[in-house]
């Protein structure tokens, strides 16, 4: 698949030890590239240095700042800047891959400091923010240095064109599709069952929409059961459930990757009632690959991923009546469900790392052609060359 071995430097803006979509994406990509015979070094902030895999270089302790409706653990400042510069000049990379370079983080610092082939991936999808217009003129010259821009979804691409007036190639996030494809149906989760995975305490994951829809669903499908998987304390949520319906709920806690695949393969319907804040929806890609029949809210990222209803059913976001209607229709109609599952499985396979990494790699190739290695920008500036000569 890959013609020659490259030295690739990847910069992760968020703390490596906190779980998150961007971190998972970088980990999988780095491991895929290493397995394909490339040399990969990931620069990331980290709290606990001892737990890092050997391809990760620690950039320092992150600080927490509020960003896009959540707390982001990032790192910047003069000390970080000098570490970034050191990493770049020691690494002798053929190419830098910066993730989320438009937020204040080591990715942006790297973009500032380096000169040469650089690829940037934009993950976030956010509404138009005034603040970006204020710092736009400062960001622009830096973002402009990227030889190629990747957006993980149509929503992320729109955010980019809106805010920074520049276009991007859409390459979705990858999953190891075969792991999910091999999921085995387990009897305890089969039947008229609805599955939900996520940190259910966070309002934007939308469990409350499902809770509201359940009384109606239960009237039409008396034996319906709901399984909720994900970290969190269920006692508070259980309090809010109607006592008559409480026995229909099972909270499974955090489940392992293998269990997740089995879980998704078993349940009759996988429901994702998220109310927003999703840029891509990797969990849906995984559910599709596992052969689940997916019901999701019609937020832009999900609508896009499900091909406007082609690969999974959509309902009006935050509308529990509509959710109930869609769920009841599907629970009654087995052929419709089988159709969606068949179409969805094909769709899920298209997110496999084999395909996604190839797409990313061809962007790498295009950025590298005719360019030299990555250098520090300051080394190539004429006045600095002039000054350093003077010193010697």
């Amino acid at each position, binding site marked *: 698949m890959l013609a020659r071995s490259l030295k690739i430097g990847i910069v992760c803006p968020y703390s490596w030890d906190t779980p998150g979509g961007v971190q998972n994406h970088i980990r999988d990509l780095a491991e895929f590239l290493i397995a394909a015979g490339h040399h990969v070094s990931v620069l990331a902030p980290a709290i606990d240095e001892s737990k890092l895999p050997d391809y990760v270089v620690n950039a320092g302790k992150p600080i927490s700042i509020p960003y896009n409706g959540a707390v982001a653990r990032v790192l910047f400042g003069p000390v970080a800047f000098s570490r970034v510069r050191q990493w770049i000049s020691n690494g002798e990379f053929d190419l830098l891959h910066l993730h989320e370079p438009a937020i204040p983080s080591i990715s942006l610092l790297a973009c500032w400091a380096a000169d040469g082939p650089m690829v940037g991936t934009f993950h976030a999808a956010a509404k138009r923010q005034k603040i970006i217009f204020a710092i736009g003129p400062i960001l622009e010259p830096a973002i402009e240095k990227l030889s190629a*821009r990747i957006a993980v979804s149509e929503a992320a691409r729109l955010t980019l064109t809106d805010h920074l007036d520049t276009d991007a190639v859409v390459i979705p996030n990858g999953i190891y599709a075969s792991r999910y494809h091999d999921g085995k149906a387990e009897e305890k989760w089969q039947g008229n069952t609805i599955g939900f995975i996520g940190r259910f305490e966070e309002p934007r994951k939308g469990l409350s929409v499902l809770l509201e829809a359940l009384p109606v669903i239960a009237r039409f499908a008396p034996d319906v059961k709901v399984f909720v998987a994900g970290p969190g304390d269920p006692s508070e949520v259980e309090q809010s459930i109607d006592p008559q319906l409480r026995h229909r709920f099972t909270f499974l806690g955090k489940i392992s990757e293998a269990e997740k695949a089995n879980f998704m393969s078993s349940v009759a319907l996988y429901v994702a009632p998220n109310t927003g804040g999703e840029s891509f929806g990797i969990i849906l890609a995984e559910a599709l690959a596992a052969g689940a029949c997916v019901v999701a809210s019609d937020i832009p990222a999900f609508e896009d991923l499900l091909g406007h209803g082609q690969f999974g059913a959509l309902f009006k976001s935050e509308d529990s009546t509509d959710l109930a209607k869609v769920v009841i229709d599907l629970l009654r109609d087995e052929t419709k469900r089988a159709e969606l599952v068949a179409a969805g499985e094909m769709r899920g396979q298209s997110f496999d790392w084999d395909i996604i990494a190839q797409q990313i790699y061809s962007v790498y190739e295009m950025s590298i052609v005719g360019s030299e290695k990555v250098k520090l920008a300051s080394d190539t500036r004429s006045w600095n060359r002039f000054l350093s000569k003077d010193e010697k």
Partner: protein
Amino acid sequence: MTPWVVTVFILLISLWYLTFLATRLDRLHHRVETSWANLDVLLQKRAAVALEIAHSDIADPASSLLLTGAAYQARDADIKSRSAAESGLSGALGLLLEDSQDLATAADNALLTELSALTDKIRVAIALHTDAVTRTQMVRSKLIVKLFRLAGTAPLPVTYEFESDVL
């Protein structure tokens, strides 16, 4: 004494800004060139694959003739007529592939897969090139760039008018 210091300071700052802008422009021109080189190579490859398809069993004699003509035109076209020629080739390929999708044998399938992989890459290359060109045009339209002739003698890049929908 102080006015002197201020004047020198302002002069230094503006000098720095001018070199900064010039570096930025230089980088952009470099990006335009490399992205064009990429696109050019990919398009040449596509013309070669198109010729191979024309000589294979996928194409009937009539479309084979059409395809060969279009491929040669795309190869020999000069920079001005390049986009028209490439769009012509896209059209010819599109016509052929529309009906021959299910007729292809295993050997021909390899050619078709190669073509679709190339098409994907070309789509990316076009996007990268177009972006580089529009950015460059944007920076070059700044008054200060024009005033100080920061772009030097580099020609103003033009967008490659490739209709991506014919790909």
